C-alpha cells in the first residue's frame, strides 16, 4: 500500500512534542486514535512496544518505523510524526531520528502491512525527499511531498 493512500494530512504531525521512545509512540498512536482508527489505545501501545522491545525500529538516516500487529485496529493504519530537531530513538546508526512512520495492522492483514513497510523502506533511500519531509512546515506540505515522491519515482 502506498504511503499516500495510507496517510492523510490529518495523520501527519509536524513538530512532535515528546522526546522519549515510549512517549513518541504514544503520541503517534494518539494521532490515529483521534481519527477514530483504533478501538483500544492501550492495546495498540502494548503491541507496538512489544515489537519495539525485540529490536529498536530506529533505522539509519533519521528514519524510525515503529510497527506491530494489533487487534485494536480492523484495517492497516498509519501515522507520520516529524521532528526537525531529531529524537533519540536508539537508532542503528546512533543518530537522532526525524521521521517516525507508525504502522499498525490487524493480525490477518500481513500482505498490505508488508507492502507498506516496503514502500517506507523505498522512500527512506531517497535523501532528497527525506530531507524535504524533515523540513516540512505543515502536515499538508508533508503529504504533498510524499505524493510528489511517489509520482516522481523515488
Amino acid at each position, binding site marked *: 500500500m502506498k504511503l499516500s493512500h495510507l496517510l492523510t494530512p490529518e495523520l501527519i504531525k509536524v513538530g512532535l512534542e515528546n522526546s522519549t521512545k515510549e512517549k513518541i509512540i504514544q503520541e503517534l498512536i494518539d494521532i490515529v486514535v483521534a481519527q477514530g482508527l483504533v478501538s483500544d489505545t492501550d492495546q495498540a501501545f502494548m503491541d507496538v512496544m512489544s515489537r519495539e522491545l525485540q529490536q529498536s525500529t530506529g533505522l539509519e538516516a533519521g528514519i524510525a518505523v515503529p510497527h506491530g500487529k494489533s487487534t485494536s485496529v480492523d484495517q492497516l493504519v498509519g501515522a507520520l510524526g516529524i521532528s526537525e530537531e531529531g529524537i533519540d530513538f536508539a537508532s542503528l546508526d546512533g543518530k537522532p531520528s526525524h521521521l517516525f512512520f507508525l504502522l499498525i495492522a490487524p493480525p490477518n492483514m*500481513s500482505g498490505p502491512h508488508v507492502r507498506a513497510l516496503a514502500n517506507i523502506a523505498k522512500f527512506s533511500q531517497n535523501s532528497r525527499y527525506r530531507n524535504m519531509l524533515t523540513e516540512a512546515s505543515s502536515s499538508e506540505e508533508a503529504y504533498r511531498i510524499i505524493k510528489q515522491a511517489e509520482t516522481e519515482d523515488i
Partner: protein
Amino acid sequence: MSFKTRPEKIMVFVEANEESITAAQYAVCLARWLNCELYAVYVVDVKTLHDLLKAKIFVEMEEMDYQHDLEEDGRRYLNYVRDLAESKGVHIYTDLLKGDVVAEIQRKVEEIDVDLLVMGKLEEPESRRDFYYNDGERIFRRTPCPAIMVKEDEPVRLMYDQL
C-alpha cells in the same frame, strides 16, 4: 510454447484481493468452455520479507511470523479458488510458491507450458515506477504466453453464476 489449435492449459495468477477472485471466476468459465486444464498459483513474496530483514525493519522472528501469515493467506485464497472451480465441475491444480513473485510466475508458466495466463485487473499506475516495477504489470508484460486481464467484475460474476 508449442503449437496448439486451442489453449489446453490455463493458469490464473492469484493474489490476496478481490480482483484475483474475479479473474479466477473467468478462468473457470474459460476452462470449462474450452475444456482446458486449469491451474491456480499464488506466490508468497518472500523476497520483500528478506529485503525488510536486510533493511533491519524486520527482526528474524518477525520475518518468519509474517511469512507464515502470508502462506496462510495464500492457502485460504487458493482453497477458495479451488471451491470456485470444483463447484462448477472444473478440476483445478493449485500451487503455493515462495520467492520473487514475477520470477516464480514466469518459471511456472514455462514449467507447465501454460497457453493462457489469466490475471486480475491492475491498479491504475500513478507513476513510471508503478508502470515498470509493479509485479502485476511486469508479469503481464513478461509472461511468455498470451495473457488476459479481467477487468469487469459484475459481468464476470454473472457469467460464472450461470455456468
